[in-house]
Each structure stands twice: as structure tokens, then as C-alpha cells.
């Protein structure tokens, strides 16, 4: 069954608003990563956060390993943040399992 579930499936914001994306996983993960995929484009790693809280720029990720969940907070959203955000876990042997993503649209 689905090992990584993301919510919401889609989100529309006005520029400047904050976004909160959720990721829940059903199996033990040795690694958790967030990726960004531009519309029709490739994937870029945003940050790796197997546990605790990590910040990079306007992004904050909090992972609670025991509860098998992670969140990605985007502050002061910009139109260039539009795209799909993917959560992925590493089961073992460094093979990532991806969720289906959250599609974010930031309107000007």
C-alpha cells in the first residue's frame, strides 16, 4: 500500500501567505527529504530532515520520527514558489519512496 501520503493534494495562496504541507509515512524511514518540482520540470532537493527541525531560507521542516510525520512550512510565499512539493523517505539501501505531492499555486 501507499507508504508516503501527502496533504493537501493542492493548495492555492495569495502571495505573501504562508503554506503548511504535510507528509505521513507508514514505514520506518532512515531518511526523509523534501523535493520541489517546477511545472513540467525536474526535481530539486530542498532539504533533508530525518528528525527534528531544519531551516533553509523561507523553508522550515519539522519531522517527528516516532509519529511518522513531517511538515514543510513555506513563509511569505512568492509566485515563484508555485509547483509541486514532494516528500520522500528512504527505506533502506538509499532507495527513495515518494509521495504523490502537494501542488502549490501562488497567485500575485
Amino acid at each position, binding site marked *: 500500500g501507499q507508504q*508516503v501520503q501527502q496533504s493537501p493534494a493542492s493548495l492555492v495562496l495569495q502571495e505573501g501567505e504562508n503554506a503548511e504541507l504535510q507528509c505521513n509515512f507508514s514505514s520506518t524511514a532512515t*531518511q526523509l*527529504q523534501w523535493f520541489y518540482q517546477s511545472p513540467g*520540470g*525536474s*526535481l*530539486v*532537493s530542498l532539504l*533533508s530532515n530525518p528528525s527534528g527541525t531544519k531551516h533553509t531560507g523561507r523553508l522550515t521542516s519539522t519531522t517527528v520520527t516516532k509519529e511518522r510525520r513531517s511538515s514543510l512550512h513555506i513563509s511569505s510565499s512568492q509566485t515563484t514558489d508555485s509547483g509541486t512539493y*514532494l516528500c*520522500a523517505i528512504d527505506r533502506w539501501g*538509499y*532507495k*527513495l*519512496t*515518494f*509521495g*504523490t*505531492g502537494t501542488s502549490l499555486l501562488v497567485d500575485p
Partner: protein
Amino acid sequence: EAAVTQSPRNKVAVTGGKVTLSCNQTNNHNNMYWYRQDTGHGLRLIHYSYGAGSTEKGDIPDGYKASRPSQENFSLILELATPSQTSVYFCASGDAGQNTLYFGAGTRLSVL
């Protein structure tokens, strides 16, 4: 910056034909991966490799073969393409110590 190059970027194939998707990375990564991305399924792992000469089955290997002739190159082969293999295919590379993967731009394959 890690570089992963896929070719072709777009491909139209006929049912029953042979298709080869190529991937080249210039970062000396040991691990390489082939994923496909479909609406509603996210990215799913087809084959992966831990180094030249090695290939391993991922989660959905049926109908696909892989080849890793060198550290830099990793190919995905569809011997008998079917319409169900219409998808966007992504190649990625990485090393465990880097804690991330670097993805190519993707290949959009249509099997008619």
C-alpha cells in the same frame, strides 16, 4: 553542481518496438536510479544500480531492463514497448553520503 543528462527528452514509440532511454552523470556518483512519474502514483522506482556492471530491480521492474556499462551511464530498455509504459521517466544519481539525489530533466515517452 551535480549534472544528470537524459536523452532523448521526448520520444514517440510504437507498440512492440524497442526503446532505449539514456542517462549520463558527470559527478562520479556510485548510485543511479530510474523512476517513472504518473498522475496519482507519484514517482515509482523501476531499476537502480550501485555501480558499473550492477543493476537491481526496483518496485515496478516488469517490462523494463537496465544496463550500467560504466560509472557515468545508466540506460533503461523497453524491449517490447506497450501503451501502459507511456509516462515521464526520470533518471537520478547520488551517493549515500550526500543524503540527496540529483535528477535529470526527464524523458516524456509516448507509446502508441
